[in-house]
């Protein structure tokens, strides 16, 4: 037994054909891409996407061989019967007003939402275990996700992959706004990549550059997708995305020229050998025709033009698998130089953006306000707003007011009719846009937070204000964090909308289009789906002075000891007067004589 235990064979990932090779292992493929977008404010945004597609049906087949798809996540899908998983860790805030609409925005802190399969019996139990396992994998404190910050949205978070039915009881959503993101979250994220920061685009992922940014967001998205155009079978898609925004003045020392080396302190030397595609896209939209404003070096061999997020954009494409771009003798360092400063034209304002703030004074009550901006000149469109407020801010729903352009704008309260399942996954149910929709779930102390979901029609060229008043609760002594004077966070609001496009998009082949164009499935070419988040809010709660119990004990004991103790001594002690003894033998003899005579002694 000891000998048998001593000698056992460890099966590693066999990358060669000398594998176990009974049946053909499911094929998987990796595509990686980097999109560099100069933002209207002068900063530079870089979005990495690593997408592993695995042609396997995890639920039905027993899998023992993992090649590109990481085993940690594959086991998670099969053990907890997940249909979709989306986890993001973000530091900073995407300023939609100044930077434009993002490809994929995430709220500050940690956000986790998951769709479970219909076979799961106890969704809350699986959700709790899932968040604990993910906290171990990503070194984040996701184990703090419990019923006090988990909600079940009913309309906002539709499945992003294939879906048979949408019973919302299998969806869970939680945000931890206080979560810090640092190198210890990036390290396990990088280790899930097939080429793991050794080759390809992931060599650029250096922590000391990536965290010196205005916005850093890393995410993991797992969803089932169609394997082919006819959708006869299902594949699993894992997307790992990382978006950063480099501040021109901090990292570029005030100059707007940038290069890969200046941003990441590395250049690209080789593609990932396991990747099917490895590309870098640089957005040269507004300046594509006019070559005198800027110059991109090295000059791109191909360009790509398409309608992205509603507008026509041009990208310079650098294919790392092409030997003319990157080879053993030449590394790729993309540079952008401004030949003359761009004209001072106002940056294009996105059609939808939002702001949120807390107003009021004192520590008893306040008001939460969300401002939704629709800057389209003539089109009105609906927005689904999801608000999740912690239980210790007691919302007064009767004070909920929505005003647009000074007039009240009430979402109609008719209950939505159940619709037949749509053929492609939609993100704002089309049937709901004509009616109103409002769903409110009140909080229960220490058990669940407030959930408010509303479909609001935003009139054209308007600002809509949604405000609600609240009262702050006093927590129990042990519920305060070790730094309670910092304040308590309220998770950001989520806006999901189909924004009208300027240019109609033609639906292209999913597999052929670049990754940043296939994040959200689009069914209607006249609008594009966008999910925006507002800022998280920091609210002060009435905080007790934690040193008071100690002070009270000291003071009370002193008072008791001094006052009561003195009186007690005065009342209960008997006092005796004692003569001091003095004198020697002569005096004692004299006292004897005097006692014999009956005279008082000396």
């Amino acid at each position, binding site marked *: 037994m000891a000998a048998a235990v001593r000698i056992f064979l460890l099966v590693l990932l066999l990358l060669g054909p000398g594998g176990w090779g009974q049946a053909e292992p499911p094929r998987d493929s990796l595509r990686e891409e980097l999109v560099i977008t100069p933002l209207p404010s002068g900063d530079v945004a870089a979005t990495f996407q690593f997408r592993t597609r695995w042609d396997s049906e995890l639920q039905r087949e027993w899998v023992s061989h993992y090649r590109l798809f990481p085993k*940690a996540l594959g086991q998670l899908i099969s053990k907890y019967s997940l249909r979709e998983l989306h986890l993001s860790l973000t530091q900073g805030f995407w300023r939609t007003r100044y930077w434009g609409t993002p490809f994929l925005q995430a709220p500050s802190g940690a956000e986790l939402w998951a769709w479970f399969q219909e076979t799961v019996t106890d969704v809350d139990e699986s959700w709790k275990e899932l968040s604990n396992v993910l906290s171990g994998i990503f070194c984040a404190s996701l184990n703090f996700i419990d019923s006090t910050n988990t909600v079940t949205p009913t309309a906002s978070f539709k499945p992003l992959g294939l879906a048979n039915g949408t019973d919302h009881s299998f969806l869970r959503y939680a945000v931890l706004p206080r979560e810090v993101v640092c190198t210890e979250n990036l390290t396990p994220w990088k280790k899930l990549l097939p080429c793991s920061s050794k080759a390809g685009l992931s060599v650029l992922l250096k922590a000391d550059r990536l965290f010196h940014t205005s916005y850093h967001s890393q995410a993991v998205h797992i969803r089932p997708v169609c394997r082919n155009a006819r959708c006869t079978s299902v594949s699993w898609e894992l997307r790992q995305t990382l978006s950063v925004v480099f501040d021109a003045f901090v990292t570029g020392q005030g100059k707007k020229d940038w290069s890969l080396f200046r941003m990441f302190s590395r250049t690209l030397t080789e593609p990932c050998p396991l990747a099917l595609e490895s590309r870098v896209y640089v957005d040269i939209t507004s300046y594509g025709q006019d070559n005198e404003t800027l110059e991109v070096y090295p000059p791109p061999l191909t360009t790509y033009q398409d309608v992205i997020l509603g507008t026509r954009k041009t990208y310079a494409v650098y294919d790392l698998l092409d030997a003319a771009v990157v080879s053993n003798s030449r590394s790729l360092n993309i540079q952008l130089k401004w030949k003359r400063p761009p004209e001072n034209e106002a940056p294009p304002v996105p059609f939808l953006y939002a702001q949120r703030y807390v107003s009021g004074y004192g520590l008893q009550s306040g008001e939460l306000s969300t401002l939704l901006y629709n800057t389209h000149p003539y089109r009105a469109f609906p927005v689904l707003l999801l608000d999740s407020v912690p239980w210790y801010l007691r919302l007064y729903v009767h004070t909920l007011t929505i005003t647009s352009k000074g007039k009240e704008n009430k979402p109609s309260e008719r209950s939505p009719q159940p619709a037949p399942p749509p053929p492609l996954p939609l993100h704002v149910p089309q049937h709901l846009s004509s009616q109103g929709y409002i769903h409110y779930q009140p909080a229960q102390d220490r058990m669940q937070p407030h959930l408010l979901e509303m479909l609001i029609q935003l009139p054209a060229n308007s600002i809509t204000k949604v405000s609600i008043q609240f009262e702050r609760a006093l927590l129990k002594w042990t519920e305060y964090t070790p730094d309670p004077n910092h304040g308590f966070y309220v998770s950001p609001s989520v806006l999901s909308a189909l924004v009208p496009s300027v240019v109609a998009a033609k639906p292209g082949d999913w597999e052929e289009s670049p990754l940043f164009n296939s994040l959200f499935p689009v069914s209607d070419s006249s609008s594009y789906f966008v999910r925006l988040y507002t800022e998280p809010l920091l609210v002060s709660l009435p905080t007790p002075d934690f040193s008071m119990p100690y002070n009270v004990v000291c003071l009370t004991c002193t008072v008791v000891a001094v006052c009561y103790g003195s009186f007690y001594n005065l009342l209960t002690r008997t006092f005796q007067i004692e003569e001091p003894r003095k004198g020697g033998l002569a005096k004692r003899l004299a006292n004897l004589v005097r006692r014999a005579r009956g005279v008082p002694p000396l």
Partner: protein
Amino acid sequence: MVDTCFLSQGLTTLAGLLLLPFGSLAASQIEDQAEQFFRSGHTNNWAVLVCTSRFWFNYRHVANTLSVYRSVKRLGIPDSHIVLMLADDMACNPRNPKPATVYSHKNMELNVYGDDVEVDYRSYEVTVENFLRVLTGRIPSSTPRSKRLLSDDRSNILIYMTGHGGNGFLKFQDSEEITNIELADAFEQMWQKRRYNELLFIIDTCQGASMYERFYSPNIMALASSQVGEDSLSHQPDPAVGVHLMDRYTFYVLEFLEEINPASQTNMNDLFQVCPKSLCVSTPGHRTDLFQRDPKNVLITDFFGSVRKVEITTETLSLQPDSGVIESRIITILGNHQLEDICFCKSYKSLFLSQVSLDYSRSSVSIQILDSARLFLKKKKY
């Protein structure tokens, strides 16, 4: 004829006599190796590194813990065997002028945070309860593997704590304390559950020696940065960062450890001499009465490094293209452990294997296996 026979015999005996010392030398070398092999009696190493202070001005406590983490990782203990608890985030703190870095020396010489760090307990998770649960193993079942201390009776554990402390207590995050009696009881629980072979406890706080006064379990060696009634002082402030970067005791311990490599023979007596009163201002103390071995026989790498015991086998297993045969062989070898239960997580790769040589041409594999693989099978019980 006879002469040549005698001559050849003489030559062979002469050759034998000449080769004898070499043989004995070789034999003694093997004996030495065998003795070293069995000297300390532990088969795996664990480290529990705790920083208990929150807020930016306690930057130095995080830097202390990360310096020990860095040394321990450099000397071979993998992340899966390190439980790192940091009560606050300094590297990505908005006040840090150089994000994702934690420096230990002014002029930004050494970034102890590095590029490959895994923090197991962060921020609000560093509490007295979680620390004691990690030590004693009484952890809720949903806790992930990286947050557990899965040691056994042949593990050498290094426990390093730093923060603000006083006579008999250590403060956790400005809201709770752990006393020396609780700590001693936790170690006794560990001893009774056979969760350690030998334990090295290092503490860098004010009046640190009070924390090890109450230990009563065997095989514990303790070091502290200051005696009862003395304060441990910080080393030097940095004008760019704006706070003190490290504490004196850990600074000199880090300097000492930077010179250790996995093969060095430095022993504990040298560690006791680190940071005399002239450099540290406080008097470092140590306690060895509960420890069975003589400190001069205890190597630094017994606690700070990771032992890789290698057992060489001559049996070869041939790889057949038919996987069914292989599977059945594996299952018979492994016994009750099902094939799919075995976790081939990347974090265990460095732990499991020192070398695997695959020879495809002959379709046979000879494997050198670590004793710690036995540990892995034991861990499945948890």
